[in-house]
């Protein structure tokens, strides 16, 4: 529960098919953020609609899920045109990231990554809270 007068933690949605990575990200980030996890791109739109996350951490290599289409779908919604998306990848082809810019991905981080780097990246991409 958020103490009175204190802003609630920002919500992150992790989309990754690897349960170990989901557990790692949840454990490492949940003290600082409200972390939600889904295992595939199919469930993600429903979670985004119902929980309205502040940032999306998206593994782009999920078998059976078209994550580029997911990004495009998110960007088509007026309310989520500016939702920060960080794309996680094991791919050697970083050029893929620059292609994905067209679908609205804001940043990418290559796996394996170290947690301080990921936290720094999340902080740099989260939009400042609107002033009261």
């Amino acid at each position: 529960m958020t103490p009175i007068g204190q802003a609630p933690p920002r919500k992150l949605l992790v989309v990754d098919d690897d349960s170990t990575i989901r557990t790692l990200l949840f454990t490492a980030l949940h003290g600082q953020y409200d972390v939600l996890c889904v295992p595939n791109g199919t469930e993600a739109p429903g979670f985004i609609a119902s929980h309205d996350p502040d940032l999306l951490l998206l593994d782009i290599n999920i078998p059976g899920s078209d994550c580029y289409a997911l990004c495009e779908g998110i960007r088509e919604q007026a309310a989520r045109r500016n939702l920060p998306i960080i794309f996680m990848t094991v791919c050697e082809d970083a050029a893929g990231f620059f292609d994905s810019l067209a679908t609205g991905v804001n940043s990418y981080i290559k796996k394996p990554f170290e947690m301080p780097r990921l936290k720094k990246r999340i902080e740099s991409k989260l939009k400042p809270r609107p002033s009261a």
Partner: protein
Amino acid sequence: MFAAVWLVYLLAALPFVADRLKTGAWPASALSLAVDAVMSGAILSVILLWRSSRERELRIDGLRKTLNEAIIHDLKNPMTSIMGCLSCILQDSPDAPRERKLLELALHSCRSQMALLETLVDTSRIEHGELIARKKLLPLRELLAEILDDTRGAAAHLGVNLKESIAPDLPDTLYADAELLRRILSNLIHNALKYTSAGGSVSLAIDFHDGDFRFDVKDTGIGIPAQHIRKLFEKYYRVEGSDQSTRRGSGLGLYFCRLAVEAHGGKINVSSKTDSGTTITFSIPRFSREEHSS
């Protein structure tokens, strides 16, 4: 195709067989036809055998590549968990020096494993002739920030000061292959860190002159003896140092860098002096020559 050619010869031979049955002797042209048939069959057999063996080779090569990619993918995901956990505990235990030391050691070993894996990927790309620069207009500063972020952890662990110097008038964009550029700089910086003792420094300087970007990776390390410099960018060439156990390499890193720089139409050079450090400089044009002229 093979069967069809033989069928044509068989049909062509039928009148001669009929003639033989009628007259009791083979006409002279029948012999020539038979020789033609045998020769064509032999040549076709050789071509078909060569084609089937080549197709098998390509299929095996393709399978090997797919297997390599799957292994690399499956190694990186667990490594993300291990490195993520170690770095998270390390960050959360600032007051436990012994534990910190042990965690840093484990994390450093993971980074070394990843560097080895990257070398294997590079080798596979070279062997499959995939070292082609897929150039795009890139946001240079963003890319440099990524690369330096990736190397700061290793520099901190080794106690080496990592510095950067970016010319203020540097253009914002560069026409290059993002992944190749990342691998070139990462290889050069890690190499410089490997040969620099704690307390030393490694610096990356970038400037832009006459349409070319110039990258300098300079270290204050052990340097390279003059006799090795000429062969430094050759495949599998390694400079054996005094401390071979900790400084061994695959001999592919600098070879890869040379090929990757050349794939961009650039050049790579080294200047070094024993015990005074090394500077590796490479330059790549902002735009490819053909694009510049169009």
